[in-house]
C-alpha cells in the first residue's frame, strides 16, 4: 500500500497531467478549483480518474467541502 505522501504525490501528478497544468505549479494545500481552473463537475471527472487509478470508490458526498489536494489524499488513503 502506498504511503500517505506517495498517494498525495500521485494525485498531484494525475491532476497535473489530466488538466495539463505544470506539476510544479501544484502544491498539496492549494485550492484545486483555483489551481486547475476547474468547476465542480470537472472535479468529479478528476475523482473518477483517481478512483480508477487507486481502485477505490468514493461517493460524491465524500468530496463535499473538500477543496485541497491534501484532504483529498486523506480521503483516498483511508479507503486503500
Amino acid at each position: 500500500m502506498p504511503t500517505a505522501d506517495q498517494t498525495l504525490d500521485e494525485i498531484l501528478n494525475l491532476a497535473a497531467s489530466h488538466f495539463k497544468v505544470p506539476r510544479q505549479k501544484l502544491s498539496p494545500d492549494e485550492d484545486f478549483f483555483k489551481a486547475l481552473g476547474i468547476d465542480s463537475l470537472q472535479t468529479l471527472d478528476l475523482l473518477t480518474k483517481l478512483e480508477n487509478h487507486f481502485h477505490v470508490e468514493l461517493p460524491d458526498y465524500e468530496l463535499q467541502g473538500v477543496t485541497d489536494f491534501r484532504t483529498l489524499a486523506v480521503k483516498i488513503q483511508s479507503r486503500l
Partner: protein
Amino acid sequence: MLDLRKYSCLGAALRDALDRFSSEVCLIEADRDREKVRLTYSDFKEIALPLARALEDAEFDPGDRAAIIMTNQSKWLISAYAIFYCGGVLVPLDYKLTAAEHLQLLAHSKAKVLVVEYHLWRAITQSPEFPRIATKIVLVTESPLGSDLAGGFRWEDFKRKGAPDFIERQREDVACIVYSSGTGGRPKGCVLTHENYLEQCIALTTWYPFWPGVRYLSILPTNHAIDFMVGFIGPFVCGACVVHLRTLRPEFVRDAFVRYRITYVSLVPMIVKNLERGLRAKFDELPKWKRAILDSLIATNKLLTSRRPNVKLSRMLLPGVHRAFGGELLALITGGAFMEPSTMQFFYDLGVPVVNGYGLTEAGTALTLNDLKPFRADTVGKPLPGVELRILNPDADGVGEVAAHSKTIMSHYLDDPELTLETIVDGWLLTGDLGRFDGRGHLQLFGRKKNMIVTEGGKNIYPEDIETVFDGLPVKEYCVFAANYIWPKKELGAETLTLVLRLEPNQQLDSKLLEDISSRNRKLPDFKRVGGYLVWDKDFPRTASMKIKRQVLAEEISKAAERTAIVGL
C-alpha cells in the same frame, strides 16, 4: 393525468395518483451503473403508508413541519408523501449546506421532524451547535446497523402497521417552506401553499405534459423548486417515472440517458455546458470526411426544424447523437441560472430542444417558459398560463424590473413580515430581475436590480450570507457586493462577488492580510467564494442602528471607481 383543479392539496392528488397508476413504475434509483431500487406506484404506497402511520403515532400533527435533508433518492419522495399524507408541512433543505447552516434552518423553520441521510446526520451531530437542536424526531436513512444515531431512529425501521388517517388540507394551507437563501443572516423561508403547487403543476403540464411511460431523469437536487415540481409532483400526477441517479459524475449521467431511455431532464447550465464540451470533443475527433457529413446533416436539421422541433426527423438525420441521449429524449429543460444562447442553439441544432425558462422560489417554480414555437435561444420564453408579468419603470430600451402576479406566488416569507411587504406589493411579486418583452411576447432578461448572484450551478448567493466568514478580519470595515450591483450591466452571466475593504488609518494591504482574506475565502464552498477585492477610502455609510447602507455605498463606489478596480483573489 389527474385533473388537479379538483384537488385541494398535494397529498390528495398524490394519493389518487398512487391508486390510479398502481402498476406503473414510478421510481428508479441507480447508483452509478447499479440499479438499487425500482418501485411501482403500488410499491411506493406500501412503503409510504407505514411511515405515515408511524409519524402519526409519534404525534406529528397536521400543520407540523418536517424537514428533509437528503440527496436525490427514493426515500426523499416517499418521506415527502408520508409528510403530506399526515397533513404536515414539508421543509426541503439543501443537502449541500454546512451542518451549522442545516441547524440554523432547522431552528428557523421549527421543524418537528427531520429526515436525513446518515452521512449528513453524522456531520450535523458533530457541529458545536448540535446540542441546541430542537427537532424532536429524527429519521436517519441508510445508517449502518448498530451505529450511534444520537437520539435518531433508523428510517427503515420507523414504520407501524395499520392504516394511517389521511389528513386533507385546504388550498390556502401551507404545503412547503422553501429557503431561497439567508443562511448567513436573514433566512428567507418562502411559504408556499398547496394552491401554489397545484396551479404551477397545471400550468407546466399544459405546455409540457407527462404521461405513463415518460422517464424523467432527476439530477437537480429535489429540494430545488424545479426538481420538486418537475421531478416529483409533475411526473407523479401523470403516472410517469422518475429516475434518480445518486451521482453527478458526467460519465454516469451520460450512461443513464441510454440505460433508462430518458424522455425529459432538467439541467443547470454547468451540466449542459459539460455535455456540450463532451459532444464537441467527440465531433472534433472525427475524420474530416465524417465531420463534413455531420456538419451538413446538422445544417439540414437546423433548416428543417427552424419553425418548430421535429424530434422524429432529427433522430433520423442524426441517429448517433440521439442514441447517445437514449433515443427518446424530447427536451432538455433548463432554468435557475443564466444559460448561454450559443449552448442552447448547439443542442437545438442537433435536434435536442432546450426548453429555457425563468422563475424563482418565491414564484413557485417557473414564471415563463419557451414554448418552442419557434425555439428561441435569446429569451426565457413566454409567461405560463395564469401568469401575468409587468415591467416596472421601464427605461428608454423598455428594460425595467419584472413583477409577477399569479396563483403560484408564495404566501409570504416565514416570520418576516417586513421583507414580505417589500417583496409582494399589492399582490405583485417584485422579482429584482431586470427584463423587457420583445414584440412576440417573449421575456428577455438583462441583469439584476438586487444585490445577489446566481451561479452556473443554479445557486442563489446573497453577499450577506457569506460575510460572516470574514468576521474578525483585521480591517476597519468590510462589505461584500455582487459586482453587477455596483456596476449594473444589461446582461447576465459571469457574475462575481467583490469584497470591499475599508482599512484602518495608516494600514497597508500587505501579504499577511491578503493571505488572511484568501484563507477565509477558501472556507466557503467554491461556488460561494468572493472573486476579488476593492479597497475603499471612505467610511461606510450606516443607518442609525449601524447597518451598512449598501445601496448608498454601492452608488458611491460606482461613481468613484470602475469595475476594473477590482483585484482578483
